[in-house]
């Protein structure tokens, strides 16, 4: 429950074309068929007392408080479980109803501690509210006798979870927490154990919350009507005094949250029921792991130094910015205009990202700007633009609720995009079919009430071969949606594609040797995707084609981070077009974006070849538009991509870099190569909230601001632009957008914006897909999915509805080309990398929260067979070596990975996962091939050389920081730190 009450209609909304009219308390009301009497009454403002009902869950009918009288019916039915009927005459209040409700409350309260004044839910307790509403004045049974709350009876609260506590003494056994875990989160970690008086909420099998399967999403805490499940921050700080709606700064789901605040202090983050991306749900990161924002490691004073081998000097903003600007100008005058560049942040706002690319293009005068999407979803941008015509996903998240078949490729939504993962699991529990294409047995393959119909457990690096085999089956078994293709796609390209995929070399039988996936499984999956039938015979599949079904593809970095990442994205688009699965609800091509604003950073022109709105720099009319608005002339040639910047730094042609909110020294592959490139720079300016790995190589440090400290917008995986609202002032005095403006100013290029809304206005003026976007419209609509323009003034939830953005859809040929990273005698295993639920990306944020209780180090997953061969036991140190480098991790011996494949995460810098990954990359975009590295694994007993060097280097850099922390600032506007 939020402190600032949102309307709660008691039961979920129903959609039905049929409207039912009934009478409630003498008033006629019309609602969709299937609506409950409770909801109908709430809709006309006649609230019915309730405890176990809430509109985020199906009705349960246990509390007996919501009884009503219905003419012609015996007794008093529960209004939550009674659907409306035409002509029904309902009374929500009568003397008799009041008496019964008071009696029910009296029983509840007779087993509830009366410590309201000192209770953490005081002022925000539904039980307290209902006692007031029903007019409870006495408890005739007394408080003696058997109970669950007195010193003798109460069980000690379970405080094992770092973020919330469970105090069974306050529990009324309404089952809202259990149902939230089942229906909303889909984890099924909670249950009611015991019967009758002994009934109690239990996590797992009589386990603590922490030891159980609980994923700490907070849905149970949100659902609890009392103080039984309560955020520890509320217990400590009390209820908040104001609420500000903002957007989570973790993954690409982009959940809307209400930041509940006292003064400048966040008390808790509560998922927003009206948030269209998350619909009131959350995960452990967004809901609880925001404490990093005020962590003591935050750096709030600018710092400079001449070399990375000397301590930092605290300086004023003015000194730092002038120093950075003069260094950039010095480098340009000596080594040429193109010797400097910038990296925009996929964690910062659209407005901030826009300003950084503008600074590079207008003030540096080149196109050397890139962003983190280079290393994650750049192939999505390329592949979808080539085939469909726009560099973005096609759907809105709740489209999945209309999918009949879902194909998940190289994504792990329950860990990486947990709130979408829960929505997907809900649809799968409702009966949608599931195909998983992944080298690992991710949770979706088998989880409570969900089991994949097909798991194509392929060898890393063979995605394209699998996709071609799926296409082969679709084409050769006559499963193409010919009418759709004829109407909407380029015919010549389609014919060429058909001829290509139909070749024998692309058949599942031929590719099985490459992919390791049995031909029959590929055939079955192709039929299921194309025709929705689980049967494995071709005939049965074709029979089912009478009914048009919806098949949707969701994919992640397991698709893009390959040497053939772009090829695979195009192969996916081909599959969707061939089967007519683009352009309506329930279908589509859905990239699950990694960071919160990676879609936005791409939209905002962060790539070295594209201006905002994905328009190539060589396009003179677009360039002219920006030249006029920015009053500069723009370079018509592409600039350096991130990996090119490293190469250019090593050959001496690139010497200065401005990095905002991106940790390339941890997240990019072949770290030793990255480190060498960073060391070669003469001026590295890092703008971040912490001294991250990259900042250890920096000469200027500009303090960044967290998402709580500024206004702006983020754009999520479904192209949804949502407001980020300032909850507290920037700790360092300036928000990131203000810092970029000041740096531009110091470079002699004026940027004049009083507020981020003015930056968005400029973006809207210059970018056709953003034409209708403004802060006023965002406030009005809550969020907007681009394109938003005259044709779609409220945005575009589903793209390519009648025609593709590029006109006709274009099938692209997708020949499988084996990666250079192949298992060999020297490196016989394939390493693939990924992420886990509790940590985020490089971990700079989540490592500074209590999420460490779930994951305190990166481990190496290895199959028992491979482990035994190497004499490695669970928990042993394992050395992992590739041609790029080696590192040491603790082994986790598990069958989640198949023989021949090992897996790790990259959340901790000291793990050095990216010391091992190579500079192999996608042919079209240079997105690194993180997902395939040929390695050897051996038992070892000490950290790798790199780890020892990294430890020493980090300790030295930390000492340089500590030295600065002890200083006073220097510079003209010197003030105490």
């Amino acid at each position, binding site marked *: 429950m939020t402190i600032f009450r949102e309307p709660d209609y008691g039961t979920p909304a129903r959609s039905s074309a049929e409207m039912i009219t009934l009478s409630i308390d003498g008033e006629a009301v019309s609602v969709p068929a299937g609506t409950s009497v409770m909801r109908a009454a709430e809709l006309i403002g006649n609230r019915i007392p309730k405890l176990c009902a809430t509109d985020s869950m199906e009705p349960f009918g246990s509390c007996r408080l919501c009884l009503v009288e219905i003419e012609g019916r015996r007794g008093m039915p529960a209004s939550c479980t009674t659907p409306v009927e035409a002509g029904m005459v309902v009374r929500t209040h009568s003397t008799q109803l009041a008496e019964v409700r008071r009696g029910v409350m009296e029983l509840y309260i007779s087993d509830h501690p009366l410590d309201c004044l000192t209770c953490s839910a005081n002022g925000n307790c539904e039980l307290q509210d209902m006692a007031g509403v029903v007019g409870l004045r006495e408890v005739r049974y007394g408080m003696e006798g058997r109970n669950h709350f007195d010193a003798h009876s109460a069980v000690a609260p379970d405080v094992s979870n770092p973020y919330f506590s469970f105090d069974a003494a306050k529990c009324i056994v309404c089952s809202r927490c259990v149902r939230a875990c089942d229906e909303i989160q889909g984890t099924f970690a909670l249950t009611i154990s015991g019967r009758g008086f002994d009934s109690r909420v239990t996590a797992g099998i009589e386990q603590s919350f922490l030891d159980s399967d609980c994923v700490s999403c907070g849905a149970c805490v949100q659902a609890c009507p009392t103080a039984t499940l309560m955020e520890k921050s509320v217990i400590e700080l009390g209820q908040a005094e104001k609420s500000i709606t903002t957007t989570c700064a973790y993954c690409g789901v982009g959940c809307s949250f209400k930041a509940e605040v006292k003064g400048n202090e966040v008390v808790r983050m509560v998922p927003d029921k009206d948030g269209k991306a998350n619909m009131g749900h959350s995960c452990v990161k967004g809901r609880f792991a925001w404490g990093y924002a005020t962590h003591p490691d935050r750096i709030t004073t600018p710092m400079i130094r001449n070399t990375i081998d000397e301590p930092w000097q605290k300086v004023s903003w003015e000194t730092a910015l002038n120093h950075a600007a003069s260094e950039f100008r010095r480098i340009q005058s000596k080594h040429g205009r193109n010797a400097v560049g910038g990296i925009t942040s996929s964690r910062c706002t659209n407005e901030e990202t826009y300003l950084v690319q503008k600074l590079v293009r207008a003030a540096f005068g080149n196109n050397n700007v890139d962003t983190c999407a280079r290393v994650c979803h750049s192939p999505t941008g390329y592949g979808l633009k080539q085939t469909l015509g726009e560099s973005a996903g096609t759907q809105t998240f709740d489209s999945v609720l209309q999918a009949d078949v879902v194909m998940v490729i190289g994504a792990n939504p329950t860990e990486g995009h947990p709130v979408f993962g829960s929505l997907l699991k809900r649809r799968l529990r409702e009966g949608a079919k599931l195909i998983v294409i992944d080298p690992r047995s991710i949770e979706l393959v088998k989880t409570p009430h969900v089991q994949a119909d097909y798991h194509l457990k392929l060898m890393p690096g063979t995605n394209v071969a699998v996709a071609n085999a799926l296409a082969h089956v679709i084409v050769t078994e006559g499963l193409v949606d010919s009418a759709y293709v004829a109407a909407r796609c380029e015919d010549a390209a389609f014919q060429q594609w058909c001829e290509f995929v139909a070749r024998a070399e692309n058949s599942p039988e031929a590719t099985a040797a490459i992919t390791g996936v049995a031909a029959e499984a590929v055939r079955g999956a192709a039929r299921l995707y194309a025709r929705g039938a689980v049967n494995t015979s071709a005939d049965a599949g074709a029979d089912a084609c009478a009914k048009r079904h919806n098949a949707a593809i969701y994919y992640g970095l397991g698709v893009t981070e390959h040497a*053939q990442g772009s090829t695979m994205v195009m192969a996916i688009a081909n599959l969707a077009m061939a089967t007519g699965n683009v352009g309506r609800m329930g279908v589509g091509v859905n990239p699950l974006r990694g960071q919160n604003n990676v879609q936005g950073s791409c939209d905002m022109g962060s790539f070295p*070849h594209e201006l905002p709105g994905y328009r190539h720099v060589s396009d003179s009319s677009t360039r002219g538009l920006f030249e006029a608005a920015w009053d500069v002339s723009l370079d018509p040639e592409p600039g350096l991509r991130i990996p090119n910047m490293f190469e250019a730094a090593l050959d001496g042609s690139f010497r200065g870099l401005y990095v905002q909110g991106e940790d390339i020294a941890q997240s990019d592959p072949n770290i030793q190569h990255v480190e060498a490139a960073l060391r070669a720079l003469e001026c590295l300016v890092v703008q971040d909230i912490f001294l991250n790995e990259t900042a250890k190589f920096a000469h200027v440090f500009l303090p960044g601001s967290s998402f709580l400290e500024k206004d702006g917008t983020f754009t999520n995986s479904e192209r949804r632009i949502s407001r980020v609202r300032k909850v507290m002032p920037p700790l360092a005095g300036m928000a990131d957008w203000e810092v970029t403006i000041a740096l531009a100013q110091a470079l002699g290029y004026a940027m004049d914006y009083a507020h981020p809304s003015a930056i968005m206005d400029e973006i809207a003026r210059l970018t056709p897909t953003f034409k209708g976007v403004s802060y006023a419209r965002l406030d009005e609509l809550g969020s907007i999915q681009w394109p938003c323009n005259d044709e779609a003034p409220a945005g575009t939830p589903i793209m390519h509805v009648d025609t593709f953005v590029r006109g006709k859809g274009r099938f692209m040929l997708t*020949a499988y080309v084996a990666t250079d990273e192949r298992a060999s005698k020297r490196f016989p295993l394939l390493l693939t990398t990924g992420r886990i639920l509790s940590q985020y990306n490089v971990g700079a944020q989540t490592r500074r929260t209590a999420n460490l209780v779930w994951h305190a180090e990166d481990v190496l997953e290895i199959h028992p067979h491979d482990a035994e061969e190497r004499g490695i036991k669970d928990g042993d140190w394992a050395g992992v070596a590739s041609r790029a480098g080696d590192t040491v991790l603790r082994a986790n011996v598990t069958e989640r990975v198949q023989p021949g494949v090992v897996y790790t995460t990259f959340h901790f810098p000291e793990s050095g996962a990216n010391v091992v990954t190579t*500079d192999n990359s996608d042919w079209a975009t240079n997105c690194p091939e993180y997902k395939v590295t040929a390695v050897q694994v051996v038992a070892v007993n000490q950290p790798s050389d790199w780890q020892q060097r990294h430890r020493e280097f980090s300790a030295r850099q930390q000492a340089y920081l500590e030295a600065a922390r002890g200083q006073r600032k220097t510079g003209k506007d010197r003030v105490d730190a």
Partner: protein
Amino acid sequence: MDIDKLVRMANSIGHHFAAYPDREEAMASIAHHIEMSWTPQMRRELLSHASQPASTHGLQALVADALAKHLVLPASTSDA
């Protein structure tokens, strides 16, 4: 820049477009892709490397032909 890396990148682009049966189309696509995504300096370095004898430059024939026939360098040398 490290010419071996540029050659590797160019060859991987070549591998992709080699699937197109029309060799002319494949060559034009390779050159276009490089023009649209590589800096002039990278293009210049690759082109100058490609002028070496085929036995030493390490480029696929399709890529080398595409560069020779289609790759356009910007008129100015603003990329200094």
